[in-house]
C-alpha cells in the first residue's frame, strides 16, 4: 500500500512557504528556467546536484551541505513520487499529501468530508467540519494535472454538499483537462432538486458520470444501510433528474450481508425503473472506516453470495445494461462472471494475499483492498493455467 499522506515533513531551509501550497514536482534538472519557478524539485540522493531556480526542493536524505531556502525532508515512503505528480504541503503542520500521480489510473480528489448519509460501511467516515479550503486547493491543482490523464474521481464525503462550487470544479476539469473522464461519487440526494441537476448538466462536460449507490429495491432497507430516512426517495429522484438533464449515471451497489439477499430483486427493480442508467457496478466491501465497527452486521464471505450475484448480472446484462463486478477476486467468481470483473481497486491500495502466490491469473484479477487483511474470503484457490 502506498502512503499518500505523511505528517513527518521536516523543513530544512531557512524559509518556509506559508500555509498550504500545491506544487507539481519535477525530476528534470535541465527543466527550462521559466518553468521551474512554480515547481518543487525532487532530490533523490545526497550526492545529486541541486539545480537552481525551483520554487522548492524535496529531499529524501538529509543533505550534508547547505540547502536552498525552501527545502523539505520527506519520509522514504514517499519515494514513489515522480515527475509530474502533485503534492500539497502544509508547513506549519509538517504534512504532505500526494494529490495526483501522473502515471496512475486511479487519481481521486477529496472535495469535502461532510456528508448527509452515514452509511454503515462508509470507507471515509464523514466529519462535520468546514473544509472549504479543499476546493480552493483543488482549483489550484487541476491546471497542474497532465492533459493525458485518463480519468479522475471526485469523492467525499458528499461532493454535492459543495453546491454550486461542484459545478465550478467540474467546469475547471472541462476547461483544463478536456480529454479526462470525470467520475463523481455522490449519493445523488441533492439532485432531487432539478435546478441543481441542471446546473451540473449545464457545465456540458464531455465525459462526466455520476456514480450513485443504491442498496435495495425497498426504501426502508436502503435508508437503513445509509442511515438516513428518506434517502431512497431522494436518490431515485436525483438519478431521474440527472438523466433528464443528460448527465450520465452509474448505479453502485456495495455487496454485503445486508444487501446480497435482495440483489436479484434490486437488479429487476433497476431493469424496470432505471434501465436508462449508463452503468451498474456491483462492488465488494472495503474493510475500512465504519465497516470495521459494523463488521458483524456486514460480513458475508463473497463465496456465499455468488448465486445472487450471478442472477443479478444475468438480469442486468440481459437487459443490455452495462454491468461490472468490482473489487472481487477471480477465483471466487463463477467462470461466467469473469468477463464482468474489473481491476477496480485503486493501485495504491490493491494487494494480493500469501495464498495468491503462484497464481497465473493475477494480472486479470481484481485482487484485494489492503484493508482486507482484517477479514477476507476463505475460498482463495490460485489458478495454475500452464
Amino acid at each position: 500500500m502506498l502512503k499518500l499522506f505523511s505528517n513527518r515533513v521536516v523543513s530544512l531551509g531557512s524559509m518556509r512557504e506559508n500555509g498550504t501550497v500545491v506544487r507539481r514536482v519535477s525530476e528534470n534538472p535541465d527543466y527550462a528556467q521559466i518553468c521551474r519557478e512554480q515547481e518543487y524539485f525532487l532530490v533523490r540522493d545526497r550526492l545529486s546536484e541541486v539545480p537552481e531556480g525551483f520554487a522548492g526542493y524535496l529531499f529524501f536524505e538529509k543533505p550534508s551541505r547547505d540547502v536552498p531556502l525552501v527545502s523539505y525532508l520527506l519520509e522514504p515512503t514517499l519515494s514513489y513520487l515522480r515527475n509530474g505528480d502533485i503534492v500539497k504541503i502544509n508547513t506549519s503542520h509538517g504534512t504532505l499529501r500526494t494529490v495526483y500521480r501522473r502515471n496512475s489510473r486511479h487519481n481521486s480528489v477529496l472535495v469535502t468530508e461532510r456528508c448527509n448519509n452515514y452509511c454503515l460501511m462508509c470507507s471515509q467516515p464523514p466529519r462535520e467540519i468546514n473544509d472549504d479550503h479543499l476546493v480552493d486547493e483543488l482549483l489550484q491543482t487541476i491546471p497542474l494535472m497532465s492533459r493525458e490523464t485518463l480519468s479522475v474521481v471526485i469523492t467525499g464525503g458528499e461532493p454535492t454538499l459543495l453546491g454550486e462550487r461542484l459545478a465550478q470544479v467540474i467546469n475547471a476539469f472541462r476547461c483544463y483537462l478536456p480529454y479526462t473522464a470525470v467520475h463523481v461519487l455522490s449519493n445523488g440526494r441533492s439532485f432531487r432538486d432539478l435546478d441543481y441537476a441542471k446546473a451540473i448538466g449545464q457545465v456540458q462536460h464531455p465525459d462526466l458520470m455520476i456514480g450513485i449507490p443504491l442498496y435495495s429495491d425497498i426504501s426502508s432497507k436502503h435508508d437503513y444501510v445509509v442511515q438516513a430516512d428518506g434517502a431512497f426517495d431522494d436518490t431515485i429522484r436525483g438519478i431521474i433528474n440527472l438523466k433528464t438533464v443528460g448527465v450520465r449515471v452509474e448505479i453502485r451497489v456495495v455487496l454485503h450481508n445486508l444487501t446480497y439477499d435482495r440483489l436479484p430483486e434490486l437488479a429487476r427493480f433497476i431493469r424496470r425503473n432505471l434501465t436508462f442508467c449508463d452503468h451498474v457496478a456491483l462492488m465488494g466491501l472495503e474493510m475500512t472506516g465504519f465497516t470495521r465497527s459494523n463488521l458483524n452486521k456486514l460480513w458475508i464471505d463473497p463465496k456465499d453470495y455468488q448465486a445472487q450475484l450471478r442472477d443479478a448480472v444475468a438480469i442486468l446484462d440481459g437487459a443490455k445494461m452495462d454491468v461490472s463486478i468490482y473489487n472481487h477476486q477471480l477465483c471466487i467468481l463463477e467462470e461466467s462472471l469473469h468477463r464482468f470483473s474489473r481491476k477496480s481497486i485503486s493501485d495504491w491500495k490493491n494487494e494480493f494475499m500469501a495464498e495468491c502466490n503462484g497464481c497465473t491469473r493475477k494480472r486479470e484479477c481484481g485482487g484485494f483492498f489492503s484493508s482486507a487483511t482484517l477479514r477476507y474470503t476463505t475460498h482463495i484457490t490460485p489458478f495454475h493455467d500452464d
Partner: protein
Amino acid sequence: MASVFQDEEFYLPAHHTYSLLPFRFSRLDSDRYVAVNEVGESQLLLRDELELFVRKRLSQSSRLYYALKARHFLEDNDSDIAADLLTLKVRSKRERIARFTSLHMFVVTLRCNHSCQYCQVSRQSEDRSAYDMTEAMADRALDFTFRSPSPAIKIEFQGGEPLLNFDLIKYIVLNAKRRNVVEKRDLAFVIATNLSFLTDEILGFCRDHAVQISTSLDGPADLHNANRPKPGNDSYEVTIDGIRRAREALGVDQVSALMTTTKASLARVTEIIDEYVKQGFRGIFLRNLSPYGFAIKTRYFDGYDSDSWLNFYRCGLDYILQLNKQGCSFAEFFTTTVLQKMLTPYETGFVNLRSPAGIGIAGIIFSYNGEVYPSDEARMKAEMGDKIFCMGNLMTDTYEQMMLSPALLTPLEDSFAESVPMCEECAFLPYCGSDPDYHYATQRDFVGHKALSGFCKKNMGVFRYIIQKLEDKPEERQILESWVNW
C-alpha cells in the same frame, strides 16, 4: 457505548399503513392469481394472500409485501416515489404512440408465380397494367410516407411477388434515399419475397442499398411445397437456395424467414422448428393462420381453432426450450414479444399487441392500385370485396383526408383495450392489445365479444403459459430472460 447507528426498524414508518396502486388481477390456474399493474409488472398470489393484500392486512416485513411495494402495487408512508416511477414507466410504454407510423408497406404488384392456399391476394396474371403499382403512385406514396413524424421509417415491399416489379422497387429505394438526405430519418428497406426471381443484379442492389430480405419458409420440403404450390413444385428448393445466396451477398442478419401455420402444420411443430434450426436461423415465429381472404373462403380457417393452435404453440415452445437446455440457442419470436412486454419497461413494435391498435399509426399499406389501408389484413379484406378499411386513394385524397378518415378513426377509437368490455378488467391487458381487423373479420365488429374471440383465447393461453414457466421453472426462466433482447 451506545451505537451511533440505528437499527433497521428505526427506518420503518411508525404508523404503518398502505394504499393500493392501480392493478388488475385474474385467475392464473387452479389456486393462483396473477396481479399485473398498469405497466406490466406482475406478482403471483394465492387467494388468501390476495385478500390480505387488498384488505390492507399484509405484514410490512413479509417478502410478498416487499415484492408488491418494489413493483408498485402499493405505496406506504415510508416512500412516495412510486407515482414518479409509474409515471415514467407509463410514458416509456406509450412512447411509440407519439412516434407514429413507422412501417410503410408498398404493394408493388399483385402478380405472383405461387398459388398458396392461404394467400388472400395474389394473381396469376401477365397483365402488368392491371396489377402493378405505377411510378406516379409510388411518388404519392413516398410523399405520404415522409409525412409521418416517425424518426424511423421502414419501407417494406409486398406483393404478390414484389420482385416481379423490381424496377419499381429500385425507383422507390433511390427516391426514398434522395428525400432522406434532407429528412434524415433512420430509413430501412425490406423485400418480402419468395426468392424465385432472385438475380445477382437484385442482390447487388440490395447490398449497395442495405435492403433486407424476408422470405417464407413453412417447414420441411413436403410441407412447404404442399402449402406453397408453384409450377415445378420446387418452392422449397428455390427458397433454400435463395436464402443461401442472399446470406452470402447480404450477411446472415439481413435475411429472415416467416412461417405460416396451416392445418397440415399442426402436428409437425418439431419438424418445422428443426427445419429453421437446420437452416441456421436464430429463431422462429410460430404464427397462427389469419382469418382472412382465401383462408376463410376456402374454409381453411375452420380447419382448426384456437385450442389446436395453442397446443401447437405450447409443444413448439417446450421443444425450443428443450433445444436451449441442450445448448442450442434459439428463440420463439411471439414469446420474445410477450416477454418484452412482461419484463421490460418498453412497448414492443409488434402491431397486433398494441392498445390502441397499430392500424395506420404503427403500420400502413399502399396497395398496387393506389388505395391506402391501415394494415395488411385490411387490404386483404378489400381484395375479398369488403373495402370497409379503405382510407382513400393516393391519387385523389390528401394525407389529412386519409389519416382522418372514418375508415381509420372508427376502428382506432374502438381499439383502446382499456375501455373495452372484458379487456378493461383483464390482468393480461398490459401484455395484450387490440385487433380490429380480426374481430371485424370474425364477428363483424371492431371490438367483438371477447368470450367468443379467438384472438383473446389464443393470447390468454400464451400469457398464462409463459407466466407459469417464468414462475415455476427456474431453468426455463433463465432461458426466457435471455430472449428479451434477442
